[in-house]
């Protein structure tokens, strides 16, 4: 599988990273070189092998369904680049 320049633009859009047009070709080259190296995994027979989902087999822990934290809206927005009255401020989304 080879990544062309259109794919780089599409993936960058999905990742919400603005890529300058002059960097698209370089990025395509870099991604291809990494993906080409990864392709050696196709040699491995994975027939019937389960994908690993946990490093250590333990029973999934469950918390009690109770409030343990909260009531601190100011802490939540403390680091926001723009906030007002404990709300995050974003550019207008709905006309």
């Amino acid at each position, binding site marked *: *599988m080879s*990544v062309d320049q259109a*794919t*780089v633009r599409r*993936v*960058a859009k*999905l*990742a*919400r*990273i*603005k*890529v300058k047009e002059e960097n698209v070709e370089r*990025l395509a080259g*870099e*991604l291809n*070189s*990494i*993906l080409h*190296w*990864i392709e*050696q*995994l196709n040699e*491995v027979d*994975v027939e019937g*092998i*389960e*994908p*690993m*989902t946990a*490093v*250590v087999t*333990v029973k*999934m*822990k469950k*918390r009690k369904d109770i409030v343990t934290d909260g009531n*601190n809206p100011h*802490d939540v*927005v*403390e*680091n*926001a*680049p*723009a906030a007002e009255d404990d709300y*995050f401020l*974003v*550019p*207008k*989304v709905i006309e």
Partner: protein
Amino acid sequence: MNDLTSLTIATAREGLRKKKFSAVELTEAYIAAVEKARVLNAYIVETPDKARAMAKASDVKLAKGEGGALEGIPLGIKDLYATKGVHTQACSHILDGFKPTYESTVTENLWREGAVMLGKLNMDEFAMGSSNETSYYGNVINPWRRKNSNAALVPGGSSGGSASAVAAHICAAATATDTGGSIRQPAAFTGTVGIKPTYGRCSRWGIVAFASSLDQAGPIARDVRDAAIMLKSMASVDPKDTTSVDLPVPDYENAIGKSIKGLRIGIPKEYRADGMSSEIEALWDKGAQWLKEQGAEIVEISLPHTKYALPAYYIVAPAEASSNLARYDGVRYGLRVPGDDIVDMYENSRAAGFGPEVQRRILIGTYVLSAGYYDAYYVRAQKIRTLIKRDFELAWDKVDVVLTPATPSPAFAPGEISDPVQMYLNDIFTVTVNMAGLPGIAVPAGISKDGLPLGLQLIGKAFDEETLFTAAAAIEQVAGGYQAPKWW
């Protein structure tokens, strides 16, 4: 006064308890040493006032005989750990100005035991790198230099600031994290000891996430005993991290000095990779010989899927990173770069905030997770992970611990490796351990022909860190310690 910084944690602890010096005196000695070593760029934020206040509180406790396990011991903290009210940016521009309103569980554990914070340590941006060249705050310099040379070398990465600071004696020990080798490779490059414990041993809560199924906290310290002291205090089960494991934390120090008679040491033949330098091969053989002379049994083993660990890692880690780093949107914290609309604002913020290596990995991760590719890449990589884990499970029938080199080479110069894949190969000996979730320790074992430290790695069974400390101490006992000549 400055010789106080030459003490290990174990000896400083003794001196503090016997009141040979105070925690404030010890901390002042470190604050002065940190200032003098700024050329290394190991600290990105120094917190001397906080350190003094913490040391003062430690002296009060020590006077009452109430000190914790790390009472009055000055530490450096990797910038990946959330520290309340103190700069926490994973050395990225995208977290510009971020000061958490909470504390990570691991650092909270350390402060509870009385440790003193000297400041935040430099690292590769979001822990993505093997040379500490991707930090927004610039390269870290290794205190070690080649024989007859003044040229700067990298300290390894991503915990490059931690390793450099420990090697330069500008903290007693440091916290670090390891996703593919980020504790063990920099420890090997700086002649220090670094342990990545079993996945789940330390809480990940409050540590900026990179690849959640691989990330694990651990210490970098001057010797094996100090690493054991640090890990004991860092490890805990935590209700805030459901992957942290509810097993008692042993007193790891007790494992040091135990006999290794009859211990079965595995030498995996697949690690004799093509092009392994004769220097590294000789170091490995020497390490095995040392263990054998102390009564261990050397057994050749096979870990057939070793060569696939690194390429599989470069699917799993970027995939998880692309998901974890989606939260940096210019809305909730950090950098915001305005745009024409909200999507434009997201794209501008992320383009300006993430460095080139982080962007590369987010793009790879987004690609391998995108529609139509998920099974071919991510699911296949997770299946290969199962095979890698199985290789080790079969090996544990024959051996108790596995011995390998820690890195394929000693430290290199900044700019020497520019190809991403070549840089990734630095983790070739360490990454299998993360993929299988096992513990691994890097211990200094020799000096290269250029005069640089070289390390060996020991890999253990899940939650058998104690055997790693025992075997690493056996190597250390013969190899001795290595100290960078002070030039700064």
